[in-house]
């Protein structure tokens, strides 16, 4: 695990992430920096669409590491997350063994001699060759360090959390038939949660914690500029102010950063220089996906657009 430490300081993290189009507040930089130094997982919480998953992607780019993603869902178990035996291959192998067994055992005279001979081959049956690595094992066994994203961990069952805990605390996995597999490199682990279910305290304790909220207007402008450099400044300011105002209203699904980016892209494609009510009306479905939200916003579209233009 003698890899050189990639990040020099919290600022360095922020700069490196920004170089790859990911703008984040200093606090996130500090957590990433410390997690990297201390070899600890990061738990990122916050509403949907604030860029929790993007953080992992940006990190993998900034650190030039492979991103291994484990998407959690209800019913996710060890077999899907860690490893599985390749039954079919094993079966084939036994069949092969059946055919070859005569050849193999010819020349042996007693039963114990035959068994001894067999035993020298038997261990093959449960060997790494038949092991189908799933994301967790892949991250642990990878030859170069990786970024491991465990996305929406709150969607998985509580039992899975307990199991994760075990893996994340010593970065080693015990396969009963083989033994303990240790990490060649400690991966950079990012867990995300929308808090649909309460995570256990034990998991929280093991991680460094970040709460991500929607960005401030300044941050959001910077994010859009980083991704869509050719956006006209006036349009940019208006788009951000419009979206920020929507988030202050009580929406079923407030616009995410990704949706804001899509909207801005669409407006640039339409060669808009600034917002007007008609344009907003036509393109509103880029940022609002819920019927109820759309209806309420449409009713008020003139005022909201005026407000956004006034800044």
């Amino acid at each position: 695990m003698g890899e050189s430490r990639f990040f020099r300081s919290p600022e360095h993290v922020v700069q490196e992430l920004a170089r790859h189009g990911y703008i984040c507040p200093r606090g996130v930089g500090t957590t990433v920096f410390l997690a990297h130094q201390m070899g600890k997982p990061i738990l990122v919480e916050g509403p949907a669409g604030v860029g929790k998953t993007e953080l992992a992607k940006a990190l993998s780019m900034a650190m030039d590491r492979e991103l291994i993603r484990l998407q959690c869902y209800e019913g996710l178990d060890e077999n899907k997350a860690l490893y599985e035996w390749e039954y079919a291959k094993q079966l084939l192998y036994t069949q092969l063994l059946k055919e070859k067994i005569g050849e193999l055992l010819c020349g042996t005279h007693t039963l114990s001699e035959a068994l001894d001979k067999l035993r020298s081959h038997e261990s093959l049956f449960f060997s790494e060759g038949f092991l189908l690595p799933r994301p967790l094992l892949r991250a642990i066994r990878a030859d170069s360090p990786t970024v491991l994203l465990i996305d929406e961990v709150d969607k998985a069952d509580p039992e899975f959390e307990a199991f994760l805990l075990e893996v994340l605390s010593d970065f080693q996995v015990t396969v009963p038939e083989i033994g303990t597999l240790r990490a060649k490199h400690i991966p950079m682990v990012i867990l995300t949660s929308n808090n649909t279910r309460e995570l256990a305290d034990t998991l929280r304790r093991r991680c460094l914690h970040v709460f991500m909220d929607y960005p401030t207007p300044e941050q959001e402008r910077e994010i859009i500029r980083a991704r869509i450099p050719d956006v006209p400044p006036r349009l940019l300011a208006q788009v951000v102010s419009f979206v920020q105002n929507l988030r202050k209203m009580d929406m079923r699904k407030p616009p995410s950063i990704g949706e804001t980016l899509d909207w801005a892209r669409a407006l640039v494609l339409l060669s808009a220089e600034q917002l007007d009510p008609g344009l907003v009306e036509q393109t509103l479905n880029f940022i609002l996906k819920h019927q109820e939200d759309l209806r309420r916003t449409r009713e008020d579209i003139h005022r909201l657009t005026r407000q956004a233009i006034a800044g």
Partner: protein
Amino acid sequence: MDAAIIEFVESLRLAGIPVTTGELMDSMEALSFIPFGDKETFKEALRTTLVKRAEHSDQFERIFALHFCHLEEEKGEGGDGEGLFVRFLDGQRALEKTGLSLSPLAKALLGGEGPLLERMALQAAREASLKEMEHSLQLGSYLRRMKEKLGFFEAMKELETLVQRLEEQSSEPQSIPPLKNILRRNREGLETMLRRLARIHLDRRGESWRRGFSSPSLLDKSFWSLTEEEIGEMRREVAILARKLKLKVAQVDRRSMRGRLNTRKTLRRNLGTEGVPFEMVFRQKKRKKSQVMALCDVSSSVWNASRFMLNLLYAIQDQFDRVRSFVFVSELGEVTSFFERMEPNEAIEKALKEAPIRYHSYSDYGDVLLEFQRKYFKDVNSRTMVIIIGDGRNNYLPTRSFVLEELRERCRKLIWLNPEPRTMWGTGDSAMLEYAAFCTLVEECRNLRQLSNFVEKLIL
């Protein structure tokens, strides 16, 4: 530094933020990686290692300010932009002229050396065991003790002598008044600093007491006597309770909900192994969710109990097929739609004020039951749980308990929660004992603990 961090963590714990020893050690490790003197990063490092829930963030900020904000900055009394002390570079020269020797404190005061004075003040605070101060009435005596530990009074005498000596020598008489002025400012500065230090300790203690000791008892606090602030805290408590309840349900579910082997799916899944079943597929039992109809008395005597019942019910509403809620005093009004349109707390406030009923009238359980029978009996079936929350005080009006009898036969469970102590039931105009005879379950429900115990029974 370590001592300061441990003290900080103690404050967090007292304030109800759980911090383990492991996390404390993490925070110390983290601090070893960050540059010294960068306060923002220092704070972020502590936050990310010690505070693992967004809802504790504000408390963290407050407690951090109490512990680590420097004495010289902020807490702005006066706030004329100047620090507490005036630097006096010529002090040393003046001192040499007189040939006197001064104690370290007097020297620091003469030179106006802020950082040094701050260190001395902190040291004195430790020696005077300022941490043990419990009440603002003790402020004076602790200030005096700190001054004694500092050698404040001796230093004052020394400086007096110094001024006298300079006046006697008096080669530059015009320099004496400014010197006196500086010494006065620095003395006042030191006194202000000591006062702030004492204040901070008091605040820390106050902050911890407020949260740490009020919250456990909140569970047992009677619904009768709640302040606005406590209602807010109670809501947070309800949210935590709901979270725990859900976790419990999920755990029980997982254990008991596995059904029989699903042969078809198992065979299909294992085709790759010639139908040798390496992997089993089980049927999932469906939890039969029930519908809940909650009837809440919102007359002034019991509305707090109703409030938190609704609060808790809606926090766990995904455990039920449907929750319908009604409020009543002398008439019955359905408020389900409030909860469909608004977030629970807003809906509850509205339900307590704006349902289509007269709020300021006398409770009339009899009429309300009749109304329920007339309008809603058609919706009651064998999956419905009816929960009535009220004290059963009927102002000696007809009780019409036969409705309850009929209701119990129609529904799965008929439950009555009474926010009055059990001993009061049946006294005066309380028709509780009569009603109780017809219910499946009757519970006293005076505080959050009883409420949560009940709800746990309900969903498990």
